[in-house]
């Protein structure tokens, strides 16, 4: 399945303004304006100027919050998004309810405590975002993430992403029974997405610190159903069902 653009000329529009450039602009803006977020539960909330807020929307991060505040736009970020801004793009400071700045290490620990698969989830998120794919939550499709080739207003998401642990650790593992495989593939297919399984493996160091980033490895696999009825070269063979 190739990309499905939502309108005429949208593909050209996307080519004209590549996501990498948008994210780069956003990063500069956030750095220059000392963007600062507040960690609350499993979200990081932050206020941005309207110009910066527009950039955030253009890069498709976070969810806008409707508030009466006219000067600033409020947004909430998911843990992966927040960590991405904080640790990868280095353009977001985060403090906690006690008004203390949170370090990389503390943030990692905090997030992992709330969601034990956070390390793998973050590696998957970061892996795709670094390749300039737009990554959003996939929970409404029964998967972890959905990946878009550009902004969701221009194109439908192509991939439904599942995060799996590579290696012997079987906890939180998915696709362990055939009915799960059937289900995940069917669901993804019914919304015209390809199921992408990301296997995240650790290199044996301590998992509690992000300084071992390079110790993670991501393996991409497509889980797809093959219909032998549809793939024969000889198209003159009559199909059944009459």
């Amino acid at each position, binding site marked *: 399945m190739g990309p499905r653009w939502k309108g005429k000329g949208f593909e050209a529009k996307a080519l004209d303004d590549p996501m990498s450039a948008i994210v780069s602009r956003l990063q500069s803006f956030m750095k220059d304006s000392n963007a600062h977020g507040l960690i609350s539960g499993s979200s990081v909330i932050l206020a941005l100027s309207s110009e910066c807020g527009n950039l955030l929307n253009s890069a498709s991060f976070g969810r*806008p919050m409707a508030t009466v505040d006219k000067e600033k736009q409020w947004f909430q970020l998911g843990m992966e998004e927040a960590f991405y801004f904080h640790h990868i793009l280095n353009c977001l400071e985060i403090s906690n309810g006690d008004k203390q700045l949170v370090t990389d290490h503390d943030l990692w620990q905090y997030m992992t405590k709330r969601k034990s698969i956070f390390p793998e989830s973050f590696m998957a998120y970061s892996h795709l975002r670094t390749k300039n794919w737009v990554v959003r939550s996939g929970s409404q499709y029964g998967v972890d993430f959905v990946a878009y080739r550009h902004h969701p207003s221009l194109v439908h998401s192509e991939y439904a992403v599942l995060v799996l642990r590579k290696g012997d650790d079987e906890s939180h593992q998915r696709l362990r*029974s*055939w009915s*799960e495989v059937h289900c995940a593939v069917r669901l993804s297919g019914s919304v015209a997405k390809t199921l992408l399984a990301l296997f995240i493996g650790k290199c044996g160091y301590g998992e509690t610190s992000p300084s071992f980033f390079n110790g993670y490895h991501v393996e*991409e*696999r497509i889980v797809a159903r093959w219909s032998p*009825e549809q793939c024969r070269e000889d198209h003159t063979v009559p199909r*059944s069902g*009459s």
Partner: protein
Amino acid sequence: MESEKWEICSSDGDLCTEDLKDEEDAFYPLSGSISKLQFRKASSRACWNSEVGMAEVVERKGQIWTTTGVLRGGKLYCSIEETLFLAEIGALVLVDENGTGLSLEGIYGKLAEEKNGCCWEHYEVYKHLKSLGYIVGRRGVPWTLKSVGTDALTEDRFITDRLSKLDLNGLEPAFDVYLPNGKFKKSSPGDPSYVLCLTRESPPSRKDVEVLERQSGHIPVKFCHVENGRVSFFSFSKVDLPVLP
């Protein structure tokens, strides 16, 4: 670039053609399969050789033999699944070593013995693909060998036994599958289009997939699951999503 609109999370609403076909199958299961098979009028004859677990074809009729059976020193032999498939469509009459005709019931019995390198589920997969026109052979068993006699066949049996003992958590590379091809030649079949692995209870683990991919070289691997007469095929292929601009 302006984009204030929030992504509306609605399903894209593409109706899966597979949904429609599945509905048909549920209500008219037999009509579908019968219309796929073409019952033959002229039958070939084969004699079952229980020592090697194959049937020696003594009288060939029709074009089916270009894509069925293996040649060993000029003689043609077919496996239990090939035998049964042809017997079901009336293209083959099987006799035992005494010359007594074997009914379909007898051949099903041989399959149930599970001594001839094939079980019921293997057969369901074989039948499904053959009915669609694919060319299917047992993994690792050459289509043609010049060697004469039962030595070669014993070797074939050895290959099949070895493969089934591999038992990677119930996984085995079972079949070489070729796309329908009117020009197929046993003397030079080329690489199969797919290597098909049958699974038992569970889907393969990532590690299993890796091992089987390595064994199959550059040939794509597919995994098969049989449940209540329904055969489904899946792949877990490695990819590398492009880096976007």
